[in-house]
């Protein structure tokens, strides 16, 4: 896992609440057995017409949105299915962080596992970002993980919460699988001390 300390970049705004993972990446893109090709399916139905041509008025297709690395979206972002293809698709497209008033639990977990930063801000900060983007879509913001803050160009800044362990892992490039594997003695001790609740799944 790569280390992350801060992200500075332009953002795009998708001012829609409850964006579900079927919008982020439709199920027909989930037939891959690796992580390739997912960026193509990102927000597919909103980005493309039925004939495959881009919808010019969708925000990601607008010239000023090109090169943005941060997505700002309405509350309850990532609700719905547990597909980790959602953060994979967002990252594949070039996003490094998503800012929203709040995230669905499974999406937040999945994003953190992949180094896509879920930045939870208050509604007021969210609204400020929405209007900043309206005024000037080339505005840049800075997200600093160490201080857990988002800073707007005029110096205003908002703090965001993050699980301390996830933060530690992101800042230091620590791999959670490695952390769990190191728990082997405790896992073995747990198994030795508890009767199995599932004896076997083999018939």
């Amino acid at each position, binding site marked *: 896992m790569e280390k992350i300390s801060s992200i500075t970049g332009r953002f795009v705004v998708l*001012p*829609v*609440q*409850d964006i*579900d993972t*079927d*919008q982020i990446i*439709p*199920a*027909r893109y*989930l*037939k*891959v*057995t*690796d*992580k390739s090709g997912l960026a193509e399916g990102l927000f597919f*139905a909103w980005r493309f017409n*039925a004939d495959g041509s881009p919808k010019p008025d969708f925000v990601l297709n607008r010239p000023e949105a090109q090169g943005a690395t941060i997505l700002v979206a*309405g*509350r*309850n972002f990532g*609700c*719905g*299915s*547990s*597909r*980790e293809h959602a953060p994979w698709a967002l990252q594949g497209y070039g996003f490094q962080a998503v800012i929203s008033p*709040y*995230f*669905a*639990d*499974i999406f937040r*977990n*999945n994003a953190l*596992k*992949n180094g896509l930063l879920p930045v939870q801000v208050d509604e007021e900060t969210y609204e400020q970002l929405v209007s900043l983007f309206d005024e000037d879509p080339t505005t840049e913001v800075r997200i600093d993980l160490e201080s857990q803050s988002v800073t707007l160009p005029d110096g205003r800044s908002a703090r965001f919460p993050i*699980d*301390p*362990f996830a933060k*530690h892992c992101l800042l230091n490039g620590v791999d*959670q*699988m490695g*952390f*769990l*594997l190191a*728990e*082997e003695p*405790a*896992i073995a001790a*747990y*198994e030795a001390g*508890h009767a*199995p*609740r*599932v*004896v*076997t*799944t*083999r*018939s």
Partner: protein
Amino acid sequence: MTIPRTLFDKIWESHIVRQQTAETPAVLYIDLHLIHEVTSPQAFTELRQRGLKVRRPDRTLATMDHSTPTTPRGPDGIIPVIDAQAVAQLGQLETNCADFGIPLFKLGSANQGIVHVIGPEQGLTQPGMTIVCGDSHTSTHGAFGALAFGIGTSEVAHVLATQCLIQNRPRTMEVRVDGRPGFGVTAKDIILAIIARYGVGAGTGHVFEYTGAAIRALSMEERMTICNMSIEGGARAGMIAPDDTTFQYIAGRPFAPQGAAWEAALAQWRSLPTDAGATYDRTITLDASQLTPMITYGTNPGMGMPIDGRIPLPEEMPDPSARQALDKALRYMDLRPGEPLLGHKIDVVFLGSCTNSRISDLRLAAGMLKGRRVAEGVRMLVVPGSQQVRQQAEAEGLHEVFRAAGAEWREAGCSACLGMNDDKVPAGKYAVSTSNRNFEGRQGPGARTFLASPVTAVAAAIEGAVADPRKYLRN
């Protein structure tokens, strides 16, 4: 005196391998890991790259359900898979299970089915367990008093390699449903009403425990319908305390404990329900006696209303963001605020999914459809949740009822629930579906979904339009 604890507290605490600290989350032991073809391939790739084994293949079970076709078998008894990507994905699961020693219910085999249907059916889902799967509707298994939740693919790899997960302790929310449900009101209507009232984000960060007289009165299959849609209410898990209804359902199933082990299990299960005086972080309530059959009109499961209701007006929404969401949803659905849905023409009826594809759902639907016909121009798909359900239904002759009515009787799987296999709702068409998500494009690009109970779905099939099921039911 010991501190009173909730059902959740008891299960959580009995699965702690490493306590949560200020710096690190808890390490939680997982009793049962269910996997399917869609969310597992990249996890096995990670295992191979790191040279890891599956720690407990004997606590892991795989099935094929999402990308599988539900088309009838060929003369050789095999269900043909045509989509090359699906073939590759299913083949990959088979290879992975063979390489790592994981039991697999292959497509078309006697026990194959939707992952959340087969666990309970096999008696693997039991009270007091921790159960995970790379699938958000794992919440279904909570109906048995288990802590069951969906995980992403990175976490699937964690569980495969270590049988554990890194978890922060969630908060608890009691969802108390009192009162006797009115005529024609099913478990599906109860959960749709909860989500309509409290919203799709209400349960974020929480585990639901459903309590109250209306919940206690439900059968196991009805409880599964309720817990299934906890995730639509924002909660990763939903649970119901085990009781005699639970124990009776499990007894005698293939993987249920037997003999002395059964007695021991029973004693332990009886200690699980929430203690008197235990507290939840939050409580929400619903009076089931006030409910009518429900239907959704919008593009998230919270956009629901009584079947005879009217679509809300923008000014009735709580805030500008919700107004915009309503506007966007109605544009997608091509519906207008203030209109009723009763009588609205429909094109497809989908009876299936891990929410409502069990034998009791099929019995209810067949009972209503018997001697009646699916309206001209309406396609009705009846998709049993598993091969076991399918066999049971056929033994009871239910498939004949569906066929005689003009509905399609299909093989087991997720089918039209998610628009990933061949079963889809065409663009612009309206479907009444017994599944759990009405998101834009969920049932196929451009598809428009009304979520409802099996009886409401059948009523719509008969009339070719959204209809009140109560006129077809005997009081």
